[in-house]
């Protein structure tokens, strides 16, 4: 008695499809239809009749409903060697005894105990041309000609279910309008050529001459100048802790790190940089991209992020210094050094990106979009 209990529970636990209620006496009245898992794997092959019939067994009385569980690849090859179990009452398609139609599917009904299920394996589907005599009183359902009328409809439903899964995948992807694609493509090619013809050769020579440690120091200094912008945007979003961290970082790195040449805030205080920009802040408040925009030098952007980029300039100390105290060429020199220094760490990235893309323009647009989506989502945490 106890052993049987354990056995039943064991089987139940191993069959996620069965609810506990099935063991109740009431459930014994219900018809349980099972089919071998491998036959389910053939679902995708809608040309095979028997598969369609199985499908019709799964949802025989409900006309193909979009709400039925979608078929996923993963479910087919599930580690459970047990079949799916469907509990609702079956349509009045039950014949007792008789001969199965070739290509028909035979299912046992009235199998309330899950333990019996495993013994059913292999009995789910009959080969197309076999005809089987069934003398067994244990009732057998034969789905024959009558269900074949639904065939086409069912095939369609199988397809649309697949599509439902696919829709799910597609929904994850963000999209952006690209009404000025011709302009963007020109800019994309401009940036591409700028990189290969100018930026890359210059940065290569630069990184050859300037030791890496110095390049890191320059990078730190430029990055430190952006701390006020990060701090303000963190404040706008509002992320108080990140705001405080950026404030501490800016003061600490400027003083102890001598104008931000080092990053002692990270190494001594263990406070990491918390990126934030105006485009992200705008996104945080629900403002969409508008449309895609490729900017010369800056690369992929959007109307929103372009405005953000312009706004961020007002939070950049150099903007105020250069407008009053520096000549145009000095300002240009500072920005050029920043770009070259930055590129010197990234040589090869763009090449490998381009190599792995089928359509680099589309790939970059999508990567920009996904990346910014992540930035905005992170600002909400």
């Amino acid at each position: 008695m106890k052993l049987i209990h354990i056995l039943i529970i064991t089987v139940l636990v191993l069959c996620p499809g069965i609810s506990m209620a099935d063991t109740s006496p009431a459930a014994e009245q219900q018809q349980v239809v099972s089919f071998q898992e491998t036959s389910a794997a053939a679902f995708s092959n809608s040309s095979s009749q028997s598969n369609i019939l199985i499908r019709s067994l799964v949802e025989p009385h409900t006309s193909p409903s979009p709400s039925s569980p979608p078929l996923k690849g993963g479910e087919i090859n599930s580690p459970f060697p047990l079949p799916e179990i469907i509990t609702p009452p079956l349509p009045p398609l039950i014949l007792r005894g008789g001969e199965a139609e070739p290509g028909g599917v035979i299912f046992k009904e009235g199998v309330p105990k899950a333990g019996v299920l495993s013994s059913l394996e292999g009995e789910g589907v009959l080969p197309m041309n076999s005809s089987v005599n069934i003398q067994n009183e244990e009732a057998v359902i034969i789905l024959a000609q009558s269900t074949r009328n639904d065939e086409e409809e069912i095939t369609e439903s199988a397809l649309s279910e697949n599509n439902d899964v696919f829709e799910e995948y597609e929904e994850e992807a963000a999209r952006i309008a690209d009404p000025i694609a011709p302009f963007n493509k020109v800019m994309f090619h401009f940036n591409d050529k700028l990189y290969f013809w100018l930026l890359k050769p210059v940065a290569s020579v630069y990184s050859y001459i300037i030791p890496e440690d110095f390049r890191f120091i320059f990078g730190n200094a430029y990055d430190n100048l952006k701390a006020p912008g990060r701090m303000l945007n963190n404040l706008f979003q509002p992320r108080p802790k990140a705001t405080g961290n950026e404030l501490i970082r800016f003061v600490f790195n400027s003083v102890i790190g001598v104008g931000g040449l080092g990053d002692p805030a990270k190494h001594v205080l263990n406070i990491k940089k918390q990126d934030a920009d105006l485009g992200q802040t705008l996104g945080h408040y629900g403002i969409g991209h508008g449309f895609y925009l490729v900017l010369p030098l800056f690369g992929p952007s959007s109307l929103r992020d372009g405005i953000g980029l312009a706004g961020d300039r007002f939070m950049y100390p150099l903007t105020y210094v250069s407008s009053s105290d520096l000549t145009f060429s000095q300002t240009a020199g500072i920005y050029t050094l920043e770009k070259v220094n930055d590129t010197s760490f990234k040589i090869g990235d763009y090449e490998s990106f381009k190599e792995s893309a089928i359509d680099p323009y589309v790939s970059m647009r999508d990567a920009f979009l996904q990346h910014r989506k992540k930035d905005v989502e992170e600002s909400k945490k």
Partner: protein
Amino acid sequence: MRKNMTKIIFILLLLLPASAFAGAPLDTVKGHADKVLDILRDPALKADSANNLRKEKIRAIAAKMFDFSELSKRTLARNWNKLSSEQQSEFVMLYESLLEDAYANKIMSFTDEKIVFNKEIPLTDKTTEVQSVVMRRNDEIPIYYRVILKDGTWRVYDVVIEGVSLINNYRTQFREILANKSPESLLETLRKKTGKS
């Protein structure tokens, strides 16, 4: 009482999801990624003459690490059914070749960096996200592997680098091609790209 306890423990053991026996997703992905890095770092394989050998070795690991048919289906999504079954299997093959190069390329730039696998987050009952971070001197790059449990093993079906999902990115590209062109011309493009025309 003691008998009951044994029973309860027995039942609790059975309640453990199958994934517990399949090996943790994180360990699986980490094991594969470490092997790829070992190959990329191997000084004997660094020379240009060893290029083919290196690729062959990475290919062998990638075949175990990734679930290319799942990847293909999820990438093409709605368009998957537009391909005939022959086209589908050719697509899987070409896409596999493309991705092996792309992944090797991407991870190649991280060979000198430390890669830390820090956590796994279950997405559904059969999918998990394994999160890793590439520690660079001046920044950190998050790389997330999305894995699916099939036949008792965890296989990668998506790689998300800095929020950019590989399959989403390719899906957008393929969608644009299939919007105006036939599946055959998509395959032709892929053949050219992977040098298998």
